[in-house]
């Protein structure tokens, strides 16, 4: 899009501003001219500049001596020099000393019909400005805690305030002048000064434009009909939520100026356990987390200790010439500023993580706070939604995922897939992130950025994971990260510890099936003890031949294989659960979230680089989930004993040890 650009002089400093509706700005500054001082001035520079250029002019602007006495020609040259590599933008200039009568050009501007997207009525006529004020108030209320592109705002308004839809530019402009909304660009270069002393290789990179919504580097650029630039940058990383462009408007408004809500002080463990039906281990961990939620915010824990984990945390605040108000760029907290503090709830597979979040949610909701539960997968959202709705009856709950109908509803309890987090800005007092190490979070700085943005600066993060990533594990061990461990499953039996079978790689076994003998014997043993058997392999291409060979060797048992490329995957998993299929050959796609009672787990090629510590622990966690058969078997079959395998076994045994020490285990 294209916007108007003008300069304001308040007697001391100049500031460049951009406007979606110049009429609003003219009236606003005219009304507030006394605050600006006696020599206040407006210089109208351009009526329609490409939005990205307008942002650039605003960011790069530096005052020149003697600007107060410049004429239009000088201003025009100045602007062109700033945008030296871009063709001349259209000019409609005028200069207005606010304490004198408005020049004819201003009168004309006010009388002219409004452009598309703006309020139609002539703003300077009686009562219209008041109406616009009402619209601005409504708009900023609707956009509380949101970070939305223009197209999303339009869609929200069509839902929530159809009267405003299609004509909200004027109201947005007024709200931004009032300081209730921040007008940002979808993609823009960071304004912060270059960091000195980072070496020559780093220097150039700081200036790459970034997507302000998801924090990724904007890698695409294309001719754009909306702003007229031939190289309008856009972000390819978050296309799924609508395209974020250099010339698209990004509206952002933090929810509520008040500080984040904290949980009420200490509650007794017994009370918490009784109310939510938790086991001893669950109750202890939940109480530790509740204690954390009751703590006052501390300075920048996410910033200071989380460098490795938050790849995009920015080190420095904004230096704004002229001291004009400006929202800090998303995702960065200035040093010493308060940043959300974090808590890790490290619960073994099958510990009943979901039950434990209930007391946490309720503690914040009872204090009138807003909470968010984010999970990587849509099916988890759909499964969790009815349970949460039942537990928190009477709370406004919103379920968000791609294609959700509740997209724009406001709620106190929000349950969302991770991508939806990008639509929020400093909105929540508590953000709970489920399965932190699962696919979309793992190594995706974009979602970490979005999560951090969605939380209030003095809010709290709770991570749930059975297998936290290494950096977090280390922080926990070092004591810099608050955490609580749930070392035992809900049924109170220890986790099955993996055993080892040394055998050739599957690749070789497929060529010489007799090499599979050790594995097939162990498989037969499991099948004979009437267990359901998972056999994990590292490659999809191994599944079919392996199923054929095993089907021949283990005749009489139903052997099937499934992978991410199998259209009948869901049906096969159901048949496996129903004990129709006895041996299921699969890949890591079934490593999480599948619970099959009375199951044994075999991992072939456990030394493969595709199986890291986390996925080995997760796969091992499929065994012994039910209380009827808590001692499932876990076998790592591989030619070599790798670091990942060792660490996975160590993690499992140490959890068992902690459980035994704390007396959570049933037998002890």
């Amino acid at each position, binding site marked *: *899009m294209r916007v108007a650009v003008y300069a304001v002089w308040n007697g001391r400093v100049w500031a460049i501003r951009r406007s979606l509706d110049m009429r609003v700005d003219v009236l606003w500054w005219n009304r507030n001219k006394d605050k600006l001082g006696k020599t206040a001035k407006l210089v109208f520079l351009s009526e329609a500049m490409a939005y990205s250029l307008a942002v650039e002019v605003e960011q790069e602007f530096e005052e020149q001596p003697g600007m107060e006495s410049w004429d239009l020609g000088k201003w025009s040259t100045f602007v062109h020099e700033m945008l030296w590599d871009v063709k001349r933008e259209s000019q409609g200039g005028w200069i207005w000393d606010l304490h004198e009568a408005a020049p004819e050009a201003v009168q004309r501007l006010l009388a002219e019909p409004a452009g598309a997207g703006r309020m139609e009525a002539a703003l300077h006529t009686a009562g219209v400005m008041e109406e616009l004020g009402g619209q601005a108030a409504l708009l900023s209320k609707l956009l509380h805690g949101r970070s939305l592109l223009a*197209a999303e705002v339009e869609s929200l308004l069509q839902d929530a305030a159809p009267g405003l839809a299609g004509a909200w530019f004027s109201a947005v402009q007024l709200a931004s002048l009032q300081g209730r909304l921040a007008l940002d660009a979808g993609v823009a270069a960071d304004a912060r000064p270059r960091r000195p002393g980072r070496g020559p290789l780093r220097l150039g990179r700081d200036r790459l434009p970034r997507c302000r919504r998801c924090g990724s580097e904007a890698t*695409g650029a*294309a001719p754009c*009909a*909306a702003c007229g630039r031939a190289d309008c940058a856009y972000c*390819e990383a978050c*296309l799924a939520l609508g*395209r974020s462009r250099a010339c698209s408007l990004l509206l952002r408004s933090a929810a509520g100026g008040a500080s984040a809500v904290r949980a009420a002080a200490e509650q007794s463990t017994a009370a918490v356990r009784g109310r939510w039906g938790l086991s001893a281990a669950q109750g202890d961990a939940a109480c530790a987390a509740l204690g954390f939620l009751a703590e006052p915010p501390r300075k920048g824990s996410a910033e200071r200790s989380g460098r*490795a984990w938050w790849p995009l945390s920015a080190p420095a605040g904004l230096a704004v010439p002229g001291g004009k108000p400006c929202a800090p760029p998303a995702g960065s907290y200035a040093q010493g500023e308060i940043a959300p503090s974090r808590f890790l709830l490290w619960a073994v597979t099958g510990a009943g993580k979901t039950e434990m979040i209930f007391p946490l949610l309720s503690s914040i909701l009872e204090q009138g706070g807003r909470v968010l539960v984010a999970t990587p997968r849509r099916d988890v959202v759909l499964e969790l939604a009815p349970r949460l709705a039942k537990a928190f009856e009477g709370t406004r709950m919103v379920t968000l995922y791609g294609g959700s109908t509740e997209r724009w509803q406001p709620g106190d309890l929000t349950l969302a897939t991770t991508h939806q987090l990008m639509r929020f800005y400093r909105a929540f007092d508590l953000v709970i992130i489920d399965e932190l190490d699962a696919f979309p979070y793992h190594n995706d700085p974009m979602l970490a950025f979005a999560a951090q943005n969605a939380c209030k600066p003095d809010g709290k993060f709770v991570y749930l994971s059975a297998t936290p990533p290494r950096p977090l594990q280390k922080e926990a061990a070092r004591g810099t990260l608050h955490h609580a461990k749930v070392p035992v499953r809900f049924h109170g039996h220890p986790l099955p510890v993996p055993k080892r079978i040394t055998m050739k790689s599957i690749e070789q076994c497929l060529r010489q099936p007799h090499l599979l003998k050790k594995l097939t014997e162990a498989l037969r043993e499991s099948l004979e003890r009437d267990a359901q058997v998972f056999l994990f392999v590292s490659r999809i291409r191994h599944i079919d031949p392996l199923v054929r060979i095993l089907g021949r060797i283990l005749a009489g048992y139903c052997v099937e294989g499934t992978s991410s490329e199998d259209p009948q995957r869901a049906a096969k998993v159901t048949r496996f659960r129903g004990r129709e299929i006895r041996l299921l050959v699969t890949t890591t796609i079934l490593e999480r979230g599948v619970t099959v009672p009375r199951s044994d787990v075999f991992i072939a090629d456990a030394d493969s680089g595709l199986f890291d510590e986390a996925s080995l622990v997760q796969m091992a966690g499929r065994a012994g989930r039910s209380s009827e058969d808590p001692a499932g078997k876990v076998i790592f079959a591989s030619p070599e004993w790798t670091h990942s395998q060792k660490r996975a076994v160590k993690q499992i045994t140490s959890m068992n040890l902690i459980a035994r020490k704390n007396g959570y285990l049933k037998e002890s």
Partner: protein
Amino acid sequence: MNSIYTSITQFIRGLLAPPGDICLTCGSPSRLTREWPGICERCALAIPWIDRPRCPYCGRASGCPDCLRKEAQHRAFVLNRSAVQYNDVMREWLAQYKYRGHEKYAPLLIKMLSRALYRMQKEISFQLKDQVGGSSREWRPDLVTFVPVSTERLTERGFNQAQVLAAGVGSIHKLPVVPLLVRSEHTGKQSFKTRQERIDSMRHVFDIDQESFRYLQHIGIEKLVSQTKSNENSTRTIEPLRVLLIDDIYTTGSTIQACAAIVKWALQYYLDVPSEVYSLTWARS
């Protein structure tokens, strides 16, 4: 300490890793094809090309009841050819490009469309050769144009997919691309409509691009035609101007029909040139 160690090993691993890129369409890291920009071998093999259209008029790969209807006899365009069948995968590709705005798809779609144009040229040349008095020269369009979108949609999307395709094909095949049409009326999205609604909504939607026609009048249309026919003996009457109309998808043909009718009429009316309109679309549903 450890993070320094890992960053060093990461760096070295990055140097030693085999060259692999991320496939544009399936997102998996693998070696990309040379022929089709940005996609891997597997995705390239899965493209449902229409190499032998069953319907000689609309270029559909399966039998086509639409072309047997009575209205179809009075079509303003000669024929349509499409590069691919519009299956789920192609639908996803087009959605990524058109609705999501993933403009890295543009080179891929252009290349695919260009392949279709080569085949179309061969096919038509072959047919012309069989006809009595046909020339042995290869058939070539004289000028390329495209289906326009409304200004509203253009600012919303930032680009017109048909224009991008036309410009790309024009530069590969060295053909002049002229915007002959504008969309004078904003209709809702076609994909939400039934067949009859689509046909009805297409009337009065397109208009000619005044500026282009003035320009064509100014330079003289003969310039375009003469390029291809300079060698021929001019005993016959003037040959019609061959216009190639480009769009992303051909569903019922109503858009193409409406555009072709206006182009034909306007070329005759303003420039006094008889014309034949051929349609080339990326997908045929």
